């Protein structure tokens, strides 16, 4: 299977099929499905941002929802004041990035849990601020704007148009983040995550890499805020309530930390689980969601993205069961196991 995927022809073929699906599916699917997929894109990108700082960077951030909220407010403000849409998008991306940079410059000096505490403060401060700055934010009533409705000339339904918008943004963001975490910066970031002393001895400044990963996470959060506004078309102080940050974190862990596929699965988890639990019993949603979270964490501590590896591992171990494994082999496996805990790039593919 993995060999097959390595052949360029197969890869290109798969890509073509995926692109064709992305183009065609929105036209075929019912409105509810399009809407759900669009929401998954929104939160997949939000989880991706969180993954940059937490999964890849190893810094605990509990404030990701703040950047999503900031992005959505900037978008809503731009849209209601008839800014150019491209300008609005750039603002929704740059302003959260600047906010993230400023916060990280101070917070990254603090080690370990201190940075987590600083990030907790973000949504806690953000919510009353959003209520209070009602000139920009519309106060507790929030802002709504139908700026992402399909233009006449497209002949599309609104949900189809919105899905195309968020699909394009999501794909581009994922590709850029993929290039980032697999490139020079990503390798350096992995060393910072693993051992700051080693990083310093190699000439990599842990401080600057933490700032960099936090800033990028904030920017990606801002992008997801723009997407949020494109799909939901409404934002209010509730959007950046602290508990959403925790749900995002859970989504990241369930999906699989430090993996791109995990971010997508995280988005699916964030959006689909409430829908699913509502379908089972609307009075028990909180309990069912907790049960699903526990179940995944017990069965797959590495998140759902680790499922294929886990299955492969099970198959391998059941294959070698007849006859006790020779000592050396067991030792090698232990080493491999230890190595697999390192954030090797291989694991992401």
């Amino acid at each position, binding site marked *: 299977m993995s060999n097959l995927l390595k052949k360029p022809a197969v890869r290109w073929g798969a890509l*073509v099929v995926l692109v064709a699906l992305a183009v065609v599916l929105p*036209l075929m699917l019912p409105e*509810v499905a399009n809407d759900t997929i669009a*929401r998954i894109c929104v939160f997949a990108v939000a989880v991706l941002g969180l993954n940059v700082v937490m999964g890849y960077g190893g810094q605990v951030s509990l404030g990701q929802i703040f950047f999503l909220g900031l992005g959505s407010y900037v978008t809503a403000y731009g849209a209601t004041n008839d800014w150019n849409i491209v300008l609005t998008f750039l603002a929704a991306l740059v302003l959260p990035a600047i906010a993230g940079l400023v916060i990280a410059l101070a917070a990254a000096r603090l080690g370990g849990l201190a940075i987590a505490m600083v990030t907790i403060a973000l949504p806690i401060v953000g919510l009353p601020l959003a209520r209070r700055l009602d000139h920009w934010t519309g106060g507790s009533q929030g802002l709504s704007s*139908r700026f992402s409705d399909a233009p006449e000339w497209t002949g599309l339904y609104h949900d189809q148009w919105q899905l195309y918008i968020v699909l394009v943004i999501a794909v581009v963001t994922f590709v850029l983040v993929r290039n980032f975490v697999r490139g020079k910066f990503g390798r350096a970031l992995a060393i910072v995550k693993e051992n700051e002393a080693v990083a310093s001895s190699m000439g990599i400044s842990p401080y600057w890499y933490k700032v960099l990963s936090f800033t990028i996470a904030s920017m990606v959060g801002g992008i997801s805020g723009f997407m949020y506004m494109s799909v939901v*078309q409404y*934002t209010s102080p509730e959007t950046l309530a602290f508990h959403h940050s925790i749900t995002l974190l859970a989504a990241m862990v369930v999906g699989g930390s430090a993996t791109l596929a995990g971010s997508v699965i995280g988005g699916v988890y964030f959006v689909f689980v409430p829908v699913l639990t509502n379908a089972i019993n609307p009075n028990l949603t909180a309990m069912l969601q907790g049960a699903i979270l526990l179940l995944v964490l017990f069965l797959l501590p590495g998140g759902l993205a680790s499922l294929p590896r886990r299955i492969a591992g099970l198959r391998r171990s059941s294959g070698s069961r007849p006859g006790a494994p020779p000592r050396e082999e067991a030792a090698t496996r232990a080493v491999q196991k230890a190595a697999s805990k390192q954030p090797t790039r291989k694991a992401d593919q």
Partner: protein
Amino acid sequence: MKMTPTRRGVTSVIALSAAVLLAATGCARDGGGGRGGETSPGITDDSITLGITTPLSGPTAGPGTCTVAGLEAYMGAVNEAGGIEFGDGKTRTVEIKALDDAYDPQKASSNYQTLKNEAFAITSGLGTPTNLAWREAATADEVPQVFVMTGDPIFSQQSESPWSLGWVPAYPNEGAAFGEMLAKSSEDHKVAILFQNDDFGEGYVEGFKEAIKGSENIEVVGELSYEATDASVDAQLTELAATDADILFNAMSITPLVISSLERAQSIGWEPSWFLPSNTSSPTAILEPGGADAYPGVYSVAFSKAPASPKFADDEDVKTFLSDLKTYADYPEVPAFPHCMWSYMLGATLEEVFKDMQEPTRENFMEAVRSIEDFKAPLMLDGTSVNTTVDGEPAVSSVVVQKYNGKGFDTVEGIE
């Protein structure tokens, strides 16, 4: 990118598959219905489905659960009796599809997407941001968003929200009811105002000031605000106490803050009469622990009978309500939140609307919704009624002022 050699192939494959599938499926979408076709979804010849999106988990789950339970109780009894005979002569039973939004606007708008194709109308949901999240979409899709439980007046303005209508009195309605009573008083009153610095607090003050405008006997001697996130309003109370006002108009929605301010004012020796909003004047949860007995009067407003009050223990409406709640909504205890009563009354009002409906369409439903005049739903207090014909007002805009008697509330005519 290294796409060049295969780009042409890729493009042609995409173009081809897109064109084929477009041709094959493009039409299916139009014929699917549910996008403004002639037949409205969620209604058949023998049943109608109502949708609800409301918080059933999280901090607002208590009142949220009530918004479903009351309606289920009323409609359960109606279905048991065979259903409702609609204006078009067909008898239908009423199904309810409730979804949890956890007070999250994003989930509410997602639930709306589900409900709009399954339910005939969406109703009863609690929460301002959660209802605002899909108000514009409902307007665009022409889906009824009726009798929603929020005090935001925007839902009742027809030019803004042609497909929406609020159920409970808007914040200014409550403030105005108290203001009118004061204005009628034969004595002079000095009023101190303390309000929450958001649309909730401002709404109360706006209604109150409108009602006392031009009244010679009322003087506002102090007006201070606080933030909903503040941990204490002691400073504001001390400053207002210095005005020596005999009335404190306190537009506050945070339960612990109300209790602590009731305690604080006594401890600094200031004992005015109080006005409190309907949702922060619970006798057992707020007034008793706050020691409200110490004040000459604590006033609030209401429009429904309180089942917990001894005064209504033998009331026929209350008895039927409690037994329906137990039988059809699996809600055995006496509800702690008024939302259970409100959604029960809402059920009775919907029954009236259905009886008026001549055609099974959403358009006709909205016409019927806006034509209810002076309907007295079960559990309604004397002096209040459902009236949907006034643009800008929610379905229930009349409230009566009540005074705390140490256990519950009594309706009063004037300030004592």
